[in-house]
């Protein structure tokens, strides 16, 4: 038997212990691969992979990679712990440490090759469905399956390097240990209640003060908080898992009347042992879950931006033609043709806008015509205005501005034409967004408008407003105009005599970007979730022998089935829900402060989306918990 055969057989024979580790790796490879498929998709790249999306997706890739590194490292350590008896034996019968290291490296590479290959195959199988879901989410016309070497190479390369790294690390660890250390079991011999009181207190204090500070956000300097809070909370979390929690359990242990009660003695000590053993892992899971909750929650709230966006952009298309624009007719008819070709219904309302200085404020002011404004109001479903000569009414530039203008009562003379108007009240509803007209507009009666217009017939501005009920479908309309605008911006030439805006197109880009980021966030969070769960399961699995014998002892001491399940619950629940609960708490407080900060920028409430995200993740976690508890109980009670 060659050495390589020995390594191979070792993996195959230890497959039960390896199984959870293997499955988790396969899953991560699969997600990573799907992700790379998306990133390198020709249809996606052209449209979206720009700016923030690229940063977001690359960041997610890096985070995935780093997390996998941690995950594999901890799994490898747990695996070595489970097999330390075997290692001690091999060393005692004369295997060299270097050989043992080589054995581990070979094993890891073998496992890595198998899981990478399986993950890629699985990923490729599912990519068609994955693309279908993505297409739905991003509302793309088509997202065909494609074959290119980049995703394959990237995934294989990433995971090969990961497994190589982990294998080298395990070889290094194993060749620096003594036999006696293996016999005790790596990390298995420590007192479950060993902690430092100072750090235990520091952990609790840091967490409490971070939470307190988060509640005060918005009142205190935001910048201050955003620099200080995350590190403080992270350090607090670390101490909490490695010291504070053991301290709390130990406090409980001193209360014999509480502790010496039924199965508690076992479940508490067991919990302490497992928490201590996995403190680092739990810390990472808690922090990473917090970050992913936060990003998913934030992205989810941005993705529901629609309502606000529509309110700010009541019109389907807006084309503004400045005086002396030779292309006006051509552009407008072009737009109408494109709308007809796309089969979209629309109402075209041309508006004339005159511009004069107001004697009241000394500022320029836009003047619109009663009849035209009423036609637009009718198209948008708002109430008409009725004006006699000499009367005028404000046209609001945003929904917030309307109430402020309502009580206005201004008498002014339009300086160029000498028309005197009495401006009173505001038009109900937002008709023209701020970007098309600026902030100072009034509507005057037909008679007055004719006077104003004839004073400067050459400087009239024309606005072509298109109301399109299916405004989200206008994505392809007016692309040529948009392009020539972009060209002139790039060349920084003379300002163009027209301006065009297609909110539907902008909206679809914003929306798709957010959705792509959201999808990324969800995928990453999923991987964390499953990896954390698999790790717990894996840990349980490696300890199964010991747990089984323990179960046999307890059974003989007269522990009932129910009490036994209680013990299992009590040791599984903290492992599943403690990192979880801490992450939830962190995210909740972070969101409270984020909400406060957010309010300053935009009037968006993220409460509902956040609650949804947290509830959704909790449900998945619960399902996962019951699945693993079921498997674990079956294993512990089952035949050896």
């Amino acid at each position, binding site marked *: 038997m060659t050495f390589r055969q020995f390594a191979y057989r070792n993996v195959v024979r230890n497959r039960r212990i390896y199984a959870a580790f293997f499955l988790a790796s396969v899953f991560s490879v699969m997600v990573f691969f799907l992700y790379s498929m998306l990133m390198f998709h020709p249809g996606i790249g052209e449209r979206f992979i720009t700016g923030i999306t690229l940063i977001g997706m690359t960041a997610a890739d890096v985070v995935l990679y780093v997390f996998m590194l941690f995950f594999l490292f901890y799994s490898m350590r747990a695996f070595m712990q489970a097999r330390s008896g075997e290692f001690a034996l091999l060393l005692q019968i004369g295997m060299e440490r270097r050989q043992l290291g080589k054995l581990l490296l070979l094993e890891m590479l073998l496992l890595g090759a198998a899981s990478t290959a399986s993950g890629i195959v699985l990923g490729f199988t599912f990519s068609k469905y994955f693309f279908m879901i993505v297409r739905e989410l991003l509302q793309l016309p088509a997202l065909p399956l494609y074959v290119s070497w980049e995703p394959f190479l990237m995934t294989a390369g990433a995971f090969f390097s990961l497994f190589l790294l982990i294998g080298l690390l395990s070889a290094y660890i194993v060749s620096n240990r003594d036999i006696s250390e293996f016999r005790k079991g790596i990390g298995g011999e420590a007192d479950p209640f060993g902690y430092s009181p100072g750090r235990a207190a520091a952990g609790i204090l840091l967490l409490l003060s971070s939470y307190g500070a988060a509640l005060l956000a918005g009142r205190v300097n935001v910048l201050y908080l955003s620099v200080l809070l995350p590190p403080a909370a992270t350090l607090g979390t670390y101490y909490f898992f490695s010291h504070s929690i053991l301290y709390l359990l130990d406090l409980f242990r001193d209360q014999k009347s509480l502790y010496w009660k039924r199965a508690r003695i076992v479940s508490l000590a067991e919990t302490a042992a497992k928490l201590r053993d996995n403190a680092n892992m739990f810390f990472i899971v808690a922090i990473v879950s917090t970050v992913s909750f936060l990003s998913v929650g934030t992205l989810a709230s941005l993705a529901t931006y629609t309502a606000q966006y529509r309110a700010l952009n009541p019109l389907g298309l807006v084309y503004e033609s400045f005086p002396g624009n030779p292309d006006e007719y051509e552009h407008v008819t072009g737009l109408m043709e494109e709308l007809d070709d796309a089969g979209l219904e629309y109402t075209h309302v041309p508006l004339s806008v005159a511009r004069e200085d107001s004697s009241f404020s000394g500022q320029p002011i836009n003047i619109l015509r009663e009849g035209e404004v009423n036609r637009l109001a009718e198209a948008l479903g708002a109430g008409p205005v009725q004006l006699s000569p000499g009367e005028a009414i404000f046209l609001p530039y945003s929904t917030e501005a309307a109430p402020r203008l309502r009580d206005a009562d201004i008498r002014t003379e339009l300086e160029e034409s000498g028309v005197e108007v009495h401006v009173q009240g505001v038009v109900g509803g937002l008709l023209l967004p701020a970007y098309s007209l600026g902030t100072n507009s009034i509507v005057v009666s037909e008679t007055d408008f004719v006077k104003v217009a004839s004073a400067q017939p050459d400087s009239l501005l024309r606005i072509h407003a298109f109301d399109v009920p299916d405004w989200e479908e206008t994505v392809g309309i007016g692309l040529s105009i948009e392009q020539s605008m972009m060209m002139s911006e790039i060349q920084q030439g003379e300002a163009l005599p027209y301006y065009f805006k297609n909110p539907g197109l902008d909206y679809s880009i914003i929306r798709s970007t957010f959705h792509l980021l959201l999808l990324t966030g969800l995928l990453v969070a999923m991987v964390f979730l499953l990896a954390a769960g698999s790790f717990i399961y894996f840990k349980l699995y490696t300890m199964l022998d010991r747990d089984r014998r323990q179960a046999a002892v307890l059974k*003989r001491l007269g522990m009932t089935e129910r009490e036994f399940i209680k013990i299992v619950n009590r040791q599984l629940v903290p492992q599943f829900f403690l990192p979880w609960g801490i992450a939830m708490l962190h995210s909740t407080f972070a969101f409270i402060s984020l909400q406060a900060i957010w309010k300053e920028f935009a009037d968006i409430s993220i409460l509902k989306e956040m609650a949804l995200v947290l509830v959704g993740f909790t449900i998945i976690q619960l399902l996962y918990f019951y699945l693993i508890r079921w498997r674990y109980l079956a294993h512990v009670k089952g035949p050896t």
Partner: protein
Amino acid sequence: MPIVSIEDVIKIYEGKVTHRALDRLSFDVEEGEFLAVMGPSGSGKTTLLNLISGIDMPTSGRVMIQGTDPAALRPDDLARFRRKELGFVFQDFNLLRMLTVEENIVLPLTLDRLPVAEMDARVKAITARLGLEDILHKRPDEISGGQEQRVAIARALVHRPSIVLADEPTGNLDSNAAREVLDLLGTINRENRTTFIMVTHDPIAASYCDRVLFIKDGAYYNEIHKDDRRRTFFQRILNILSLLGGNVDDLSSVRLP
């Protein structure tokens, strides 16, 4: 009425090869008796203890303890019965590794919801008798094999069971420590009329008992009763062991203290 009665018990392990671990075994144990069970390795001694405690069920035949058949009890009642009436010392893996010595000992009491003061008192009493006071707050990994075995004995006795089942309780002890433990078990046996069923390979340990039951290949082989002098009892045990085919040559030279 016997406290334990084994009637025609057969235990067959199904597997790749079916194995008959116990074969039509019958015997009684009287209340307050100190019984030793001897037999070659693999003769079914541990299997027998498992049947008495209701961990395993006989394939046929009947096990009666205090007039009840554990096989007929509901699982929870069986567990309750075990925690009240039975004490255990295992052949291997005795203590829970993450608990301290004290916690290991108190474990059976906590299952029964005794007041804390009472639990403390009982732990003190039993650890004093077994000389474990100094290691109460150590964990199993930090004590010697012999100490571990004594802790296991303390745990088996702390809740004052009416029957104690012990699988090689002195296997890890030197002859002095073994004698002390056996003396202690004898005292408890006399004072509390606790019934002991002790599996052992050690003829010296067996000579402390009222009766020795020999089994071979899962079947009843022989039994002998204590007589006035331990030395002759010991010699008779050796004789039967040599008939049983166990390797006792090295033991015949052992001088009883």
